């Protein structure tokens, strides 16, 4: 591609404090379409706060976020309605996104392997299945920019691998994907690793050919 493209996501100078505790101190993040970015950092470094700020679920003290397309956000803790079944969740979000079919939903449910729970209320699902539904809701409308906050918690190994197949497909289809991770062994899957430390992000190119990209 020779034409200059708009970035899929630009977050600039994001500041956020909780009381006196300054979590983000001018974090910047730019993600191009088709880029797969990992946000890495210690516990409590503000990774989830950053994603919430970009997604708009948390008000920031200062900063600016620009999106080049539709956003899908998968929060770390599943946000579901325990009284509604899996299918009802899909219908509710299909209505939200004004989708004309549940084709994509069916694909995702099948890919993540939880078809047999479609009639089950979210409150009766296991933690792993809730997380699958949580992820499905973020992907339902085929967004251009995806923010995934440790999206595979509670997944078994098989589902974990399928999750990465799914991310690879999105990657190939030019979607921008940001994943919070702290698993060193999977860092080679990413195009860019962005280290979050002291409230700022420092991107580095992931050395895909290296077996370990630890600091």
């Amino acid at each position, binding site marked *: 591609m020779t034409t200059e493209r708009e970035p899929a996501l630009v977050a600039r100078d994001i500041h956020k404090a909780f009381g006196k505790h300054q979590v983000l101190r001018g974090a910047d993040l730019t993600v191009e379409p088709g880029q797969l970015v990992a946000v890495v950092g210690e516990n409590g470094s503000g990774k989830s706060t950053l994603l919430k700020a970009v997604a708009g679920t948390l008000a920031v003290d200062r900063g600016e976020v620009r999106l080049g397309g539709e956003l899908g956000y998968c929060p770390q803790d599943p946000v579901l309605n325990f*009284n509604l079944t899996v299918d009802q969740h899909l219908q509710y979000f299909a209505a939200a996104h*004004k989708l004309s*079919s549940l084709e994509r939903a069916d694909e995702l449910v099948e890919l993540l392997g939880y078809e047999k729970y479609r009639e089950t209320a979210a409150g009766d699902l296991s933690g792993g299945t809730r997380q699958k539904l949580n992820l499905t*809701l973020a992907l339902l409308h085929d967004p251009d920019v995806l923010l995934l906050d440790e999206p595979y918690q509670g997944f078994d190994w098989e589902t974990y691998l399928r999750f990465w197949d799914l991310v690879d497909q999105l990657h190939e289809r030019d979607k921008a994907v940001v994943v919070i991770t702290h698993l060193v062994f999977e860092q080679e899957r990413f195009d860019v690793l962005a280290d979050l430390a002291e409230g700022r992000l420092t991107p580095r190119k992931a050395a895909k050919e290296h077996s370990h990209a630890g600091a």
Partner: protein
Amino acid sequence: MPAPDTLKSTPLYGQFPTALAFSVREQSRNRLAALLLVLFVPLWYLLMTSIAGDKDLEFKLYSTGQMLSVDGKHVTLITAGLNSLTMISGFVVFDAVRKALAFDKRLAFAGFRQSTLIGAKMLAIGIVAGSIALYTALALLIYWRPGFTGWATILGGFVTMTLTYGSLGLLLGVLVKNDLEGFFLIIMGGLTDTFLQNPLGNPAANKPVLQYFPSFGPMQFSVGGSLGDTVLWRYLGLGLIWAASFAVVGLIVFHFRTRSRRPTA
């Protein structure tokens, strides 16, 4: 860069009917509240009337200033009904709204119109509150047959009361952080409010201060219609103002708590 056209031509599910159906579902899935309604209401009537005995009581109708001499049992049945309604409808709506708040926020972020979500939620509260009030008014007939107009005014008072406490449940559901605080406020509020209106339990009943409580309007309306042969629409309106006020404040808070906070340039 929207999703492919095939995904977006005609929506498969309308936002309003979807939100209405699921809001009614989440509010009516409260098994404890259903059990309370079915078992507690008739038992509560029985218990309260046996405590009341057959004493006559003086009850002040504020529209006319008239003191009605009424059967204590009848007034007590009305306050018992109002009282159980405050708890059940407050509990049902509070629980459903509080548990679904984060989910509703996610829906709003996904493109659900907030006004549609709010409208559907309010209508669902109306449907659920109306059903609860109807059942409670029907259960009252086991103990007392006040005649059709009398019963209809009691039902009117009951519906207004459930709407008021349903709306209070909505308000607390979007404000309060944990279950206990909300339940405590609803139970204490409902008990105090309805108990004070009954001259049997409260020697200070009939005092002007009672006018400033939410159950004042429904109580006057129900007693006026069933025991005083007057239909006091103004008092029904007063009750509805309480309901509307709680609802409006609750919905404004809901709107703020579910809006996007993304900092755009």
